[in-house]
């Protein structure tokens, strides 16, 4: 319990987490506002309010990675391990704090986007959360942000440098996952298993048929069901995080 308080003090006594959280929130809600205001001709579906969550996800992952890499950058990780020499307990405490916080930001971003869509969209007849799927589209963003933060913490602890960790996350999510689709023959099959694309299926997959605008294809790819997709993404995040715990424990601080 005390270690949770420690990580909370550490996180909130510097400014960059605040900026990252505001940016994640502002980016997601702001872009949705533009989409909602310009949604003409058909009723805006619930899904339409959360297309932009990926932008917030990348920012929140940067925040999570920074929570570890700045400790290495400024040497405070050594003070941390001096105070808690088993190393695993402070790292877990950090994960609990960062993951919970990220999930909260995710919920704020998705419900904020959804709420704003009510105000800005012309036709809100399809915007009510009337099914389990609708709830998943919106509330699921919290889960994806939490899992993404865990993944970023693991990458940050393994790489130990801000620039390295942030480039790995962004290049993978924004470039690599899209480029693999261009590989002849097997590209599409590989793409179906790329973690960030699979995570999108959890949010956007299997919408209620009435929610899909006429003529639009399925909004997300992947072989798994939406919840299976989340389990896949969260599983990868957990695996990398656990590897980082083992490495951090063994490595010289």
């Amino acid at each position, binding site marked *: 319990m005390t270690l949770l*308080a420690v990580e909370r*003090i550490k996180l909130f006594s510097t400014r960059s987490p605040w900026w990252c959280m505001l940016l994640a929130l502002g980016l997601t809600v702001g872009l949705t506002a533009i989409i909602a205001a310009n949604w003409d001709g058909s009723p805006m579906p619930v899904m339409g309010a959360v297309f932009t969550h990926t932008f917030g996800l990348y920012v929140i992952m940067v925040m999570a990675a920074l929570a570890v890499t700045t400790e290495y950058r400024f*040497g405070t990780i050594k003070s*941390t391990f*001096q*105070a808690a020499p*088993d190393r695993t307990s402070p790292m877990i405490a950090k994960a609990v704090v960062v993951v919970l916080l990220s999930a909260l930001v995710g919920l704020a971003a998705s419900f904020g986007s959804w709420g704003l869509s009510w105000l800005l969209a012309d036709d809100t007849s399809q915007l009510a959360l009337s099914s389990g799927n609708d709830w998943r589209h919106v509330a699921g963003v919290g889960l994806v942000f939490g899992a993404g933060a865990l993944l970023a913490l693991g990458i940050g602890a393994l790489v130990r440098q801000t620039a390295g960790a942030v480039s790995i996350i962004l290049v993978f999510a924004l470039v690599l996952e899209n480029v693999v689709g261009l590989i002849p023959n097997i590209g599409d099959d590989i793409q179906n298993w790329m973690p960030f694309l699979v995570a999108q299926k959890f949010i956007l997959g299997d919408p209620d048929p009435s929610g899909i605008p006429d003529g639009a294809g399925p909004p997300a790819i992947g072989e798994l069901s939406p919840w299976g997709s989340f389990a896949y993404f969260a599983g990868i995040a957990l695996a990398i995080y656990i590897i980082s715990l083992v490495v951090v424990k063994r490595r010289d601080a």
Partner: protein
Amino acid sequence: MIEATGLTKHYGKTVAVDDLSFSVQPGRVTGFLGPNGAGKSTTMRMILGLDSPTRGKVTVKGRDYRSLHDPLRVVGALLDAKWVHPNRSARAHLQWLAKSNRIPSRRVDEVLDIVGLTQVAKRRAGGFSLGMSQRLGIAGALLGDPEVLMFDEPVNGLDPEGILWIRQFMHRLADEGRTVFVSSHLLSEMAQTAQDLIVIGRGKLISQTSTEQFIKDATEDTVRVRSPQLDRLRELLAGRARIADAAASDGALVVHGVEPSFIGELAAANGITLHELSPQLGSLEEAFMQLTKESVEYHAAD
């Protein structure tokens, strides 16, 4: 209090610490002396469980650091004053440290007061001068009111006033019965601070003695002798002087405790040819450099 046995650390091919054994006693300031790169910081990191020894072990109060419960209450250390987030205030920095080991937050104000940082407690640590950073680091070390204190080159870059403050401060801590272990690469500094000295060179132990004894040994005049009949000369000198072989390759003797004239006459009387007979008078610092550079020599003399 601090006990190292056969402590060894390799970084790839670099041997940073090599089979080091020593012990540090309570109630005294013990200096940890060695030139740059001798392995002082590495040893201290191993004491704190930050780096794992390749071989050997080191204990604090008989226990592995990593097995200590609330270790900040047992060992306080300042290894690097820069290990602070520059955008965090001095107080916030100490607060999270205190919290982690269940130290009451009133203690944060106490240590801020002890090191004289109360006025600037709310300012971001990144804007601190070197002296203030060093004081903040010391405040962190004192947080848990620990019995064992460790400082790595605490006076580096400080002005004379700051140096004096730290020196007196360490004496006060030792007088209270605590174990104070402080590193430096300057013998002249340690001569005024430490009662005991652990001297290392290239990761190896050179000597562990009282500072007084070390200085006496180090500043003693020596004579360097080279001769084709070195073995014979060695026999003649045996019993009258302490003899050490200088760095193995150049085949000279380093003789302690006799005048050059004595060796010259002894050689002449016995028909020994001398190729070199040079008195070695050094300053304290030069003598120290000599000792740490030619650690082999000193071992043979001991």
